[in-house]
């Protein structure tokens, strides 16, 4: 081809290439810009080979397809590299295809203007524009950020994008530890789960305190482990740690790390510092907001806790409520334990219902004396909460655990731990153990005040329940002991008794009954009612019952026995004003002698269901100040008759006077073919929230097989 001055001497660069980009002709302007010899290029190199990598991708993915599709492309920026000194030539130009696509003779003409002079200005303008756009985006994102988490994630999104970071996090100082507010990974390098562990980067705390940003660089794997940080198992190549300073105080840090790029240039550094400053200011107000919200949430939790706990009565039920309430909101799993309690592991809860049983099994088995986890033991000993922000994997190596325990531990995978002793009135009520596992959350020292509040509030409630349980237990066992003794057996008698507590939540009352032989043919029967409820009443009842037996066995007879008892009750606090009905039935003579001290009258029901109310033999309640003459009454009982003694709970109710109650009782008895005490009590019950204890004793004289009542001797023999 002949020399063409318009081609060779032009001030613009010309390149003619075949359709694959192989250079056919190139002019002097382009050669002088780049420093190539024509012989190095013509028929040897392709246009795209001369480009920088970024421009080459752009050329292949945009320019080449466009050339194929539409013949010409205008207004294209391409950057070439010089083979001599590696410098870059920025060009601006157009390209045009001559000839049909696919034809061997087709050519592509490039016309290029050297834009290197404009490049610096353009780059600056571009960079400034990008940064401004980013700044505007961040500013508007921060303006709508309410929580510290919002602020952190908006900042991280812009910063990771802005400096091509692979991982970043924002953390604040809480007490003397760091708490990560937000961590973010850039896909696809991170999988979104990588966490840069702070414990592996001790310099961060120092950086925050110094208030000076640090830019650290490592030349990759194994070269320099100063970063001490790995992202998804890959060593970081560079890391920027920027203290977040607001109001003259650094109380947080923003970290950005990469695993591929090295170093931060001056531009990136100034960008990071500017954005960190912006974030720090927003973070300060967001943290105040978070604090207010957190306080309100904590107060509401305590209120919910109080209501939920007081809603149930027993100690175990309250323990279960406690763990059910803290899981999963405050912990992944929780237990209430007390080495002195018969159950030891009193309540367990796990956010995964399938892990409740393994948790219970593990906690129960490691409670074997001597192998108790040390933190729990320490919490008990010190009475202080124990916090393990990060449970070291090797911690359990120190315990003598069997393979089963290890398997359970592996399943539960505890990561972070708080043990809170619960003391009330100086007594250990139990230990609340909170553990983070699968949720990947961690406890921090900042959580301790709130958790301690919870433990203290729970302790009071649990202690009340424990005392209540204890009282119920003692009173209940008293009553069982006293009332559950077998009644005397004799084939001349059908002796039955029933005791029914007023209600589940009502304390044990002071009703009692007794039946015992005072002679070979003489049976003593007593039903009484002691003032008050609970343990005090049960204690008085037991003393009174013993005294009554003693006086009766002396052979005093009903009136004198009550007289003696009168004297006795004045010496027993709480025994005064007790009522009692006492009777002795002589099985030989069929004579019944009875006396009532302020007690509802016994009933005598004949075999024919005729009822007699035994209104005689009455005297006042026991323990009335003046010594009183006690009276007694006697009558003869026919075979098949039943003597019914009871406490006022059977007949008395607000809706029904005592007399009406007795009348109703007689009606019920008349309608029954046999006297079943359970049925009787059920029929006499009225719908009334207030219900007294009910105690009924029934004795029926029956004909024994030998045909007579007398055991020792028949009358007159």
């Amino acid at each position: 081809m002949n020399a063409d001055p318009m081609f060779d001497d032009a001030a613009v660069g010309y390149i003619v290439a075949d359709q694959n980009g192989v250079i056919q002709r190139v002019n002097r302007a382009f050669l002088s810009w780049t420093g190539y010899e024509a012989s190095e290029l013509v028929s040897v190199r392709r246009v795209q080979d001369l480009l920088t990598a970024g421009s080459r991708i752009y050329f292949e993915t945009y320019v080449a397809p466009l050339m194929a599709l539409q013949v010409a492309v205008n207004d294209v920026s391409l950057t070439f590299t010089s083979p001599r000194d590696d410098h870059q030539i920025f060009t601006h130009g157009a390209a045009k295809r001559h000839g049909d696509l696919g034809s061997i003779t087709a050519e592509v003409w490039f016309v290029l203007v050297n834009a290197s002079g404009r490049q610096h200005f353009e780059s600056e303008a571009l960079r400034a524009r990008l940064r401004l756009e980013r700044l505007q985006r961040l500013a508007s994102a921060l303006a709508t950020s309410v929580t510290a988490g919002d602020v952190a994630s908006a900042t991280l999104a812009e910063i990771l994008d802005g400096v091509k970071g692979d991982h970043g996090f924002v953390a604040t100082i809480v007490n003397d530890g760091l708490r990560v507010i937000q961590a973010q990974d850039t896909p696809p390098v991170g999988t979104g789960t990588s966490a840069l562990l702070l414990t592996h980067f001790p310099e961060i705390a120092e950086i925050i305190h110094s208030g000076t940003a640090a830019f650290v660089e490592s030349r990759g794997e194994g070269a320099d482990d100063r970063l001490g940080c790995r992202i998804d198992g890959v060593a970081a190549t560079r890391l920027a740690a920027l203290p977040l300073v607001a109001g003259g105080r650094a109380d947080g840090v923003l970290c950005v790390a990469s695993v591929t790029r090295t170093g931060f240039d001056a531009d990136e550094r100034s960008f990071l510092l500017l954005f960190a400053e912006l974030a720090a200011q927003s973070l300060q107000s967001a943290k105040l907001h978070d604090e207010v919200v957190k306080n309100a949430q904590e107060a509401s939790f305590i209120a919910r806790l109080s209501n939920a706990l007081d809603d149930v009565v027993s100690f175990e039920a309250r323990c279960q409520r406690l763990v059910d309430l803290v899981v999963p909101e405050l912990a992944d799993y929780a237990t209430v334990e007390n080495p002195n309690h018969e159950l030891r592991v009193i309540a367990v809860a796990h956010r995964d219902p399938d892990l409740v049983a393994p948790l219970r099994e593990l906690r129960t088995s490691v409670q074997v004396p001597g192998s108790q986890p040390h933190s729990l033991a320490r919490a008990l000993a010190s009475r202080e909460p124990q916090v393990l922000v990060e449970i070291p994997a090797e911690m359990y190596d120190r315990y003598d655990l069997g393979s089963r325990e290890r398997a359970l531990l592996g399943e539960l995978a505890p990561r972070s731990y708080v043990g809170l002793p619960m003391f009330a009135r100086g007594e250990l009520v139990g230990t609340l153990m909170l553990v983070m596992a699968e949720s990947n959350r961690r406890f921090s020292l900042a959580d301790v005040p709130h958790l301690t509040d919870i433990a203290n509030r729970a302790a009071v409630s649990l202690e009340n329940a424990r005392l209540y349980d204890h009282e119920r237990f003692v009173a209940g066992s008293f009553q069982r002991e006293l009332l559950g003794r077998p009644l005397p057996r004799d084939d001349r008698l059908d002796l039955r008794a029933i005791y029914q507590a007023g209600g589940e939540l009502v304390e044990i009352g002071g009703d009692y009954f007794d039946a015992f032989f005072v002679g070979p043919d003489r049976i003593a029967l007593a039903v009484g009612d002691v003032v008050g409820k609970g343990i005090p009443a049960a204690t008085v009842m037991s003393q009174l019952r013993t005294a009554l037996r003693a006086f009766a066995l002396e052979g005093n007879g009903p009136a004198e026995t009550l007289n003696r008892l009168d004297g006795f009750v004045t010496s027993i606090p709480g025994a005064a004003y007790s009522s009692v009905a006492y009777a002795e039935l002589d099985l030989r003579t069929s004579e019944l002698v009875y006396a009532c001290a302020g007690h509802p009258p016994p009933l005598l029901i004949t075999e024919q269901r005729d009822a007699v109310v035994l209104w005689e033999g009455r005297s006042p309640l026991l323990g009335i100040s003046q010594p009183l003459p006690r009276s007694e009454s006697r009558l003869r009982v026919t075979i098949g008759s039943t003597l019914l003694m009871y406490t006022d709970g059977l007949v008395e109710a607000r809706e029904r006077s005592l007399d009406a109650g007795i009348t109703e009782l007689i009606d019920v008895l008349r309608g029954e073919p046999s006297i079943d005490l359970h049925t009787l009590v059920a029929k006499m019950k009225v719908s009334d929230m207030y219900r007294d204890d009910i105690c009924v004793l029934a004795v029926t004289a029956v004909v024994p097989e030998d045909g007579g009542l007398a055991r020792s001797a028949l009358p007159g023999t």
Partner: protein
Amino acid sequence: MTGMSVRVRNNVKVSGVPGGQAMVFAHGFGCDQQMWRLVAPAFEDRYSVVLFDHVGSGRSDLSSYEAHRYTNLDGYARDVLELLLELQLERVIFVGHSVSAMIGVLAAIERPELFESLVLVGPSARYVDDRDYRGGFAAADIDELLIVMSRNYLGWSAAMAPIVMGNADRPELGEELTQLFCANDPEIAKHFAAATFLADNRADLPRCATPSLVLQMTDDVIAPIEAGEYVHRHLVNSELRILKATGHCPNLSAPAETIAAMNAYLAAGYGTSAGSLSGAA
């Protein structure tokens, strides 16, 4: 997907044999479905040919673009599956160019029953070098690409305006030139560039069992031969075919060779038997 139909969202065009086995063509980074204009017609006599634009490219619905959905290739793969489901296509032959090769692999891993075979034109599982792996680029090169793209988009509205050429023998070209080819929104294009060139789908390859044809070009500066061989080695059921064509876009620069290679593969029963032998690495 709710609201807009996938047909509108992805500017879907269907031609060829109605109801026939579907051949779905997916364009790569940088252009749109026009990339296939020299290849797709060759299959219209035997297949139902489906063309579409990725969201953010060509004439797709730009309002459907959500940055978070498309931060990586999974979002694009989900779009492909939604497209197949809406068109009720099964056992399709998926032809993916450049980044769409990996998009097809991801979609086939998710719903293998929808794919008969994959034709991967210039695939790369990772563009950035990583220790022993050669993808062809350094991370900094991708940074530069984004800068180059920004510079080219400084005057974007006019940038791609075609120079109208008098082309008497190809009048249809003149008409088409009044359209904007590959006129992609610059911001979306940059996000797509990042999603494409920073992707690492190496770990996904062994999870794809769909018979695949890897078409590797000679001297492709975007996807070097090592990248193509890597894809072939790690796809369990693939066949590798090296084209004489150079550059990254044989669908434009060497359509005849591309078509022939595809036909040969399809004629061999979609490569099921051949692929299992050569891909047993």
